[in-house]
């Protein structure tokens, strides 16, 4: 099996049995950011730390991408194999809302307020045959 690597380092803990999103927290005002940044967009402080943002949240808003985007979109897909995908903002326990692809891709399966879980999924392979991974959310399975 091809080795799996994050498409972009620093967005989520990987490899991991229990991956979570990674962001930054301002050590002065406490506001969070995703992706992590060295300065705070709320108070301009330059004192921030990397923190885990968790792996679950609630769907704050959503849409469905019905057509294949132009460049810079770059995945395994071609115009023939493209499937619509969901896009949403998921509100995390710290209050931050993170934009994400969603596994669900039909209006019947998406609703504001849904409980959502994180998963790590392949995007494409690089020139060395390594599989590049990104994050997305999906509706939590009801207990």
């Amino acid at each position, binding site marked *: 099996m091809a080795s799996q690597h994050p498409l972009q380092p620093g967005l989520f803990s990987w490899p991991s049995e229990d991956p979570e999103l990674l962001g930054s927290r301002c050590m002065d005002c406490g506001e969070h950011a995703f*992706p992590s940044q060295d300065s705070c967009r*709320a108070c301009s402080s330059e004192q921030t730390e990397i923190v885990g943002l968790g792996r679950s949240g609630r769907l704050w808003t*959503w849409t469905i991408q019905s057509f294949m985007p*132009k460049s*810079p979109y770059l*995945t395994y897909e071609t115009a023939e194999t493209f499937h619509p995908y969901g896009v949403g903002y998921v*509100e995390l326990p710290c209050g931050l809302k993170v934009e994400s692809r969603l596994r669900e891709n039909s209006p019947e399966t998406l609703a504001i307020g849904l409980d959502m879980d994180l998963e790590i999924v392949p995007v494409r392979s690089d020139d060395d045959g390594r599989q590049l991974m990104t994050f997305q959310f999906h509706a939590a399975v009801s207990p």
Partner: protein
Amino acid sequence: MTDVAIVGLGIHPFGRSPSLTGLEQGALAARAALVDAGTDFKAMQFAFGGSQDGGNADSLVNLLGLTGLQFTNIWNGCATGGSSLNAAYSAIKSGQYDTGLVVGFDKHARGAFNPQPRDWGLDDWYGETGLMLTTQYFAMKIQRYMHDHGISRDTLIRVAEKAFRNGSITPTAWRQTALSRDEIEQAPMVSEPLNKYMFCSPAEGGCALVLCRADKAHQFTSKPVLLKSAVVRSRHYGSFEVFSPSQAPTVAPSPTVTASRAAFEFAGIGPEDVQVAQLQDTEVGAEIMHMAENGFCRHGEQERWLREGMTEIQGKLPVNTDGGCLANGEPVGASGLRQVFEICHQLRGTAGARQVPNAPKVGYTHVYGAPGISGVNILAT
């Protein structure tokens, strides 16, 4: 301090002009504005101009004349026209100049814009995984707004119907065919809940205005329109903006709210005094949300306003009388100036078939765009 007047209006029709460059469309608009003001380019002491994809605005001097005037290029996203007007307003208000030109033009490729993450301070993953689309942002903003404020899909359809109906009586509009409710409702979905006829498209076109000190306006026209305020504002922490991998926990008012409040304060009037308005309608949801963000109604009241036709040409507050971005398309550099062009015609009483009745005296324009910038102008006779 002197007031600032708009004394010349020029436009090159929006849509597609295959035989003309963007720059040439800007030059045609500029010459039309100069003719409208009964003057010529040699009389212009300054110019501010902008374009996203049409080339350097100051190259216009090669087509209009190498007179040596101060020509400054302005680029400020969707608020480029508003920012040019703001700069011209300040140049005249300060006493530096008496008379000048503002011009915007563009020529975009077909289809949606394809912005590059690096230009917006983002890493490549954001675009590669399919999150870098303005259409998604607009869809997600109105989706949440519909949920929070009880806006129905019917209201989305009504905005599109109005836009194409108004476009059909606007000679310089791109889309000049009215569409039925069914045609709009059954169009292919682009980004839930917004379909093909609910979005505007990138286009081509040019627009220009001649401005001067108000006390000199009658040298140029018998119908000057006063520019009472010209305000541009950027986003605050927490406002929900395009190309945001994450958003703050608490939603802050958009830059439209702050620009609008400042513009009303400068003009010394309130939303209830406005008789005709142009509100940024890059998609139908934007027009709906901007009605409230600019202070014309409360959140949720748009449902009744649209149902009762209050934003129609004959209504209480006509909105986007020329069909807005939905019917004109969006040549980014020219779009904000088109709004002002239309309001000036409405205030002059020269808007033809789309003339708002009872001689409106106060008009309003609003642009909003990436990455969270808004421009508001208040105009009066």
